């Protein structure tokens, strides 16, 4: 189900953009890359803020740009919402007038109910009469998000919306974004260079480098591609979609179920059935050839090796696939994994890999030393 088709070629001499992407029409697609990778340029081309001489852009069947037919819809005619890195509120207008600026200019007004909901969701209802200069950075960015959403856009474009905020403010906004994620039914294109935001928000991940798309696909698929630098990074991790299955109050633990079994986590304050994102760093995963019988590690799972690559500093990155358990996978809504097979990355020393004789296709056991819950 592809509803965003973006193909751009642009040449500034020292910088080239050359992408041809098909992106899903739901969920959050993160455009990830370092500065200079072209992720913001790509977003600006999609918004029409920058015009790629060669380009074709189709959103929900509507053509926004087609250089072959010399068609280019100017930004103000594109039904999109755009959130800038700096909130970019109009300094001469109050929060309320900022929110109404776009509303006044669209034909089908989505109505005040929709706006009320957005304000509620972002927690900014009490700020309406304030001027932007009297808002904190986090509040400003939330107003900017509401201002973009108020228009009922067909696609929401976000350019590093958290990059200009300090750690505390980031933590203040991320939960709002996660909530948005669950309630929005439009596709979101989200530019970031932060792996944390990728792990927390992405359904689909596009990795950009030097103006090209290195990889594009579902989060788990892209995260676990050994040929992409992400998997070889110190912070390499995989994210699993899971649901709260059971609380073990005595041990202060929570058991969560995912498409391949279950994991014990430090107690989570959430009701049974709540969907969670669990992030597992590759450095927290170790491999054993036989089921460890006496171990302090709670989370031991059977897995099959599907790939091995060299990581940094005489490390090996091992890609593993967990067998699917039919009875569990049915109860888990997995937006992230179309296949249902969970993949996992393990970061081990090259020496260990040699001594254990690890090879593709081998059945092994993985021990997960630590996990983090993302929402």
């Amino acid at each position, binding site marked *: 189900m592809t509803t965003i088709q973006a193909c751009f070629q642009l040449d500034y001499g020292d910088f080239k953009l050359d992408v041809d992407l098909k992106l899903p029409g739901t969920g959050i697609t993160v455009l990830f890359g370092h500065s200079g990778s072209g992720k913001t340029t790509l977003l600006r081309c999609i918004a029409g803020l920058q015009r790629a001489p060669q380009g074709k852009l189709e959103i929900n069947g509507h053509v926004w740009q087609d250089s072959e037919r010399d068609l280019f819809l*100017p930004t*103000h005619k594109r039904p999109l919402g755009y959130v800038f890195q700096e909130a970019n509120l109009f300094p001469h207008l109050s929060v309320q007038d900022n929110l109404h600026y*776009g509303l006044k200019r669209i034909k089908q007004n989505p109505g005040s109910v929709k706006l009320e909901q957005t304000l509620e969701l972002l927690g900014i209802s009490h700020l309406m009469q304030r001027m932007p200069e009297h808002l904190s950075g986090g509040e400003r960015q939330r107003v900017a998000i509401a201002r973009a959403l108020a228009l009922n856009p067909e696609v929401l474009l976000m350019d590093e919306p958290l990059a200009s905020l300090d750690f505390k403010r980031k933590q203040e906004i991320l939960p709002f974004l996660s909530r948005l994620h669950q309630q929005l039914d439009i596709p979101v294109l989200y530019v970031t260079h932060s792996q944390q935001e990728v792990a927390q928000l992405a359904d689909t991940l596009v990795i950009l480098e030097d103006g090209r798309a290195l990889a594009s696909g579902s989060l788990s698929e892209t995260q676990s591609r050994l040929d992409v630098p992400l998997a070889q990074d110190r912070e390499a991790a995989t994210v699993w979609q899971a649901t709260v299955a059971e609380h073990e109050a005595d041990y202060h633990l929570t058991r969560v179920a995912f498409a391949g079994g279950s994991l014990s986590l430090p107690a989570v304050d959430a009701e049974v059935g709540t969907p969670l994102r669990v992030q597992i760093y590759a450095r927290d995963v170790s491999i054993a050839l036989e089921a460890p019988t006496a171990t302090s590690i709670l989370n031991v799972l059977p897995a099959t090796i599907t790939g091995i690559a060299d990581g940094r500093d005489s490390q090996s990155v091992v890609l593993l696939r967990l067998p699917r358990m039919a009875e569990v996978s049915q109860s888990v809504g997995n937006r992230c994994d179309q296949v249902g097979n969970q993949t996992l990355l393990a970061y081990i020393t090259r020496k260990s890999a040699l001594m254990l004789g690890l090879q593709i296709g081998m059945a092994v056991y993985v021990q997960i030393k630590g996990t983090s819950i993302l929402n």
Partner: protein
Amino acid sequence: MLTSADLDTLLLTGKIAGIATALMLLIGTPLAWWLTRTSSPFKGIINTLVALPLVLPPSVLGFYLLVLMGPAGPVGKLTVWLGLGTLPFTFAGLVVASVLYSIPFVVQPLQASFSSISEQALEAAATLRASPLDTFFSVVVPLAKPGFLSAAILGFAHTVGEFGVVLMVGGNIPDKTRVVSVQIYNHVEALEYSEAHWLAGCLLLFSFSVLLVLYTVLKTQPVAHPLK
């Protein structure tokens, strides 16, 4: 005291400066916006032409205007052909000359003000469905309000203070082209120092108040930024 003839010159000066200021804002706004945004090769030339009256002796500008707008000049031929007669020594001619003479004082504050508006604000407006023209009136104009105010004040004040151009283009015709600065000159020529004092005092007070407002209320930078 001010004589009734003096009052007439004051009134005429105000009228000319008012009309000229309105025209300068009308012409200067799109011109300043274009100069701020364009990357056209003509930008340098246009900027120079706009700033030229700042450094040119007013009599030089007046002389060329007189020649251009006179019956033998191209502009004069055009106005005659249009049935408007020739412009020198008329109220309209004085307004045209004033506009040309004072326009840098309108365009430059506007340009400074426009260029301080971030590209991002304009882009935000575009993503909120505002067309470029809509963006200009709903974002640029309100954000450039101090620029418009100082442009209007400076343009008006500078027109009130002109002398050389008036003398060349307007002459000294009572109720038509005799403005305050010329009247003061007349008084001094006739050794009427007391009358000259009154009028000169009026202008001094006016100029002082105008600049005081600019620097204290609007917090504008000093005017000496012509070629910025």
